[in-house]
């Protein structure tokens, strides 16, 4: 990671941030008219990126992305393939660190701390930011062990049974699997597996849950179950979801970010506004299906 760039941030954004840090937005009527993102935010910002660039080798995957993701809401990222929305998601919990060729410039703040600072341990970060992947990927262990995995990693093994039950209930899976906790997680159906992965993620009680197209490998019934679940999760967690499916974004999210080709964040606003009255012609074209 090139931290040189982070030590010299853009003075403008720096000033803007200081402003926000002392007077967080919730409920405050005073709003900078030019700043749409803060104008519509009704709760505290939990994740914020400033001029975030990501390169894979020579290819630029994200171009100057600045965004503020509010707490305990569902934020959807939509856009055509290769537009960088998954890349952005993976920047948040530093999963891109696992790719040797990835290089990140700019700032990404989680609770006002740059996650790419030298003193941030990505392992500790990922314990607070859970992730659910596109393909359901339970471990080839029992259902119980799958859910207990994160707790055991952190040695939080008191009341393990209770916590596993809570997580499975939270993922709306408990009633279906309570009699087969010892059976392999791989024996479940695709939709159940994905809910198991969600249970696994929420068992450690993270603050944010990142979802990378969680329903794209599932049938319509399982998809709708996952969508209902996301709705419930947003009561307790901040959910950031990447999706290909515009209807899905419209159904479940409070805020929507539209990425278009070249890793550019074109528009970020309340979901309703994005879908009914977008600022940019390109966003409208994408949403109405004229391209992408």
């Amino acid at each position, binding site marked *: 990671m090139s931290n040189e760039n982070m030590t010299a941030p853009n003075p403008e954004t720096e000033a803007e941030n200081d402003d926000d840090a002392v007077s967080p937005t919730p409920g405050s009527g005073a709003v900078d008219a030019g700043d749409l993102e803060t104008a519509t935010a009704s709760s505290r910002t939990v994740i914020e990126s400033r001029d975030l660039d990501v390169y894979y080798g020579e290819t630029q995957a994200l171009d100057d992305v600045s965004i503020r993701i509010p707490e305990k809401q569902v934020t959807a990222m939509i856009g055509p393939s290769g537009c960088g929305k998954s890349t952005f998601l993976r920047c948040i*919990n530093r999963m891109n660190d696992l790719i040797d060729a990835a290089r990140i410039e700019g700032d990404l703040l989680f609770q006002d701390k740059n996650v790419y600072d030298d003193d941030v341990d990505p392992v500790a970060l*990922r314990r607070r930011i*859970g*992730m659910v992947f596109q393909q359901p*990927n339970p*471990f*080839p262990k029992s259902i119980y062990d799958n859910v207990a995995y*994160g707790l055991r*990693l952190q040695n939080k093994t008191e009341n393990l049974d209770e916590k596993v039950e809570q997580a499975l209930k939270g993922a709306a899976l408990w009633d279906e699997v309570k009699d087969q906790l010892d059976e*392999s997680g791989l024996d479940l159906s695709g939709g159940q597996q994905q809910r198991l992965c969600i249970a696994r993620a929420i068992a450690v009680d993270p603050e944010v849950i990142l979802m990378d197209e969680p329903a794209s490998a599932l049938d319509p019934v399982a998809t709708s179950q996952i969508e209902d679940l996301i709705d419930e999760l947003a009561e307790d967690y901040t959910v950031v979801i990447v999706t290909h499916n515009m209807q899905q974004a419209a159904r479940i999210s409070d805020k929507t970010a539209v990425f278009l080709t070249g890793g550019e964040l074109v528009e970020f606003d309340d979901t309703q506004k994005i879908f009914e009255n977008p600022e940019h012609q390109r966003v409208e074209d994408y949403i109405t299906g004229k391209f992408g």
Partner: protein
Amino acid sequence: MATERSTRDGSWYGDGEGVNQLRGQLFKWGCLGAMLFGIVMVFVLLAYVAIDAIRPLTADPGWHLTFFLTLVAPTSALLGYYGLRDRRSGLVGAIATALPAFCLLVGAGISLLLVDVFRPIEWFGTAVALVVAVGVVYVHRRLRTEPAAFERPIVTVGALVLAVVGVPGVVPSLSQLFRNAPIALNPATMLLYSFAVPVAILTGLAIARRRESRRDGLIAAALTVVGGVLAVIAAPAVGIDDYLLIVLSLSIAAPTAVYVEGVVRERDHLVGLALPIVAYVGTFLGAALVEAYGFAGPEAWLDWQFLTSAHSRFPQEAGIYPALVGSIMMMLVIVVSAFPVGVAAAVYLEEYAPDSGTVGRVVGLIEMNIANLAGVPSVVYGLLGLALFIRYADMNTGSVIVGGLTVGLLILPIVIISSQEAIRAVPNSMRQASYGMGATKWQTVRNVVLPESIPGILTGTILAFGRAIGETAPLLMIGAAAVVFSPPGSFAEKFSAMPRQIFAWSHEPSAEFRYGVLAAGVVTLLVVLLSMNAAAILIRNRYQRRS
């Protein structure tokens, strides 16, 4: 126009020159021929050696007829039925028939070790020491629920080392203390505690898990112990030492019983169980009839006497026993040395080594050269072993440990490469899931990568061990004995291994040695090798079905 013409000359349905499949057909038949050639050559080789080793033509015609009627005809009929009607039952039958034979080989291997390497008192002492060590570790985990960093591994490793090895010359190990303690237990009692009880626990666990009933598990465990006691009672009648009969009978009976119980309970292709019944009853019936009518069997070179005696000047009295024990002891050294080093190297290369940058290029170079090392002739490894272990490290010429380490070096590249393949086969999504949960690299490797890849690692490694057991050239280079008359008493003593002994027989002037005894040795070696490969296949199938 074009359609008109093609309709008229019939080319649209492939009648004309447009579609030519001749080359494809020739290629297919060529491939078939190559495959048949390979299979036939292997079969001819095996038949040639087996005929020399067993000499079936020296038997009475009556002997052949009896066994044909009692064994060959009924099993062939049954196999024909399975093949035509019920293949799944055939598979069940094959497993139920092969399992006891395979377990007999394993049990015989353990028995060899008990007779010559670990005497029962040592085995018992080690078992007790292990139990104590495990108990210490368990109590420690219970008492210290929040251990300091490295506390648990240190306690675990320390307890095991103190229990089994001790600190040489300073602190004697627990098992040594136990061995020297004045305890008057006879070997049978010791083996009942240290072999029958562990087997009973394993059996009980298997049954309890399958039936989901503690009671059934306890019953199965109790039956296993009763079986051990019965073996002691029956020993004088059978004519085998009582402690060896415990090992042999339990290592055959327990796995077979667990398998058969599963088939019977689930009514899963019950017909398959007819095969082992017909085969084993046929064998014993045939043996009884041959005895009753006085038909002479074949004067086989490969017989009980061959397996249990040492080399002799007279071919009729020559045997392979010391070399067999030597081979097994050498395998132990190879397993202990090559397996951990190879797996660790593979884990580093696959999980930790960077892919890019200068270090990445060096790692790539190393990986390429590991593949090259796998192709270096074995005689070169022999030279390396000679220089490294005997000249430099000053170990005994031709000792078990030098042989094992040298051949271990030889198969190390194969172990590394096959372990790398197995680790690479673990889906990346598993690693991602683990990292996404906030696992460290070490936690991911330990909890996800290794458990997932261990079946593949074992399969590849066992195949490599199969190659190791047949290596001859390195043994010649490090000076393994051509002929030994008693098995090595420790790992530092001079030994001979099966391939070395076979090589020595090939130089004997007498034709009986060069054809008969040698063939018997080759068949013994092949049986050991094939059963190792069978074990590898079993492990692979078992885990493939699960995932």
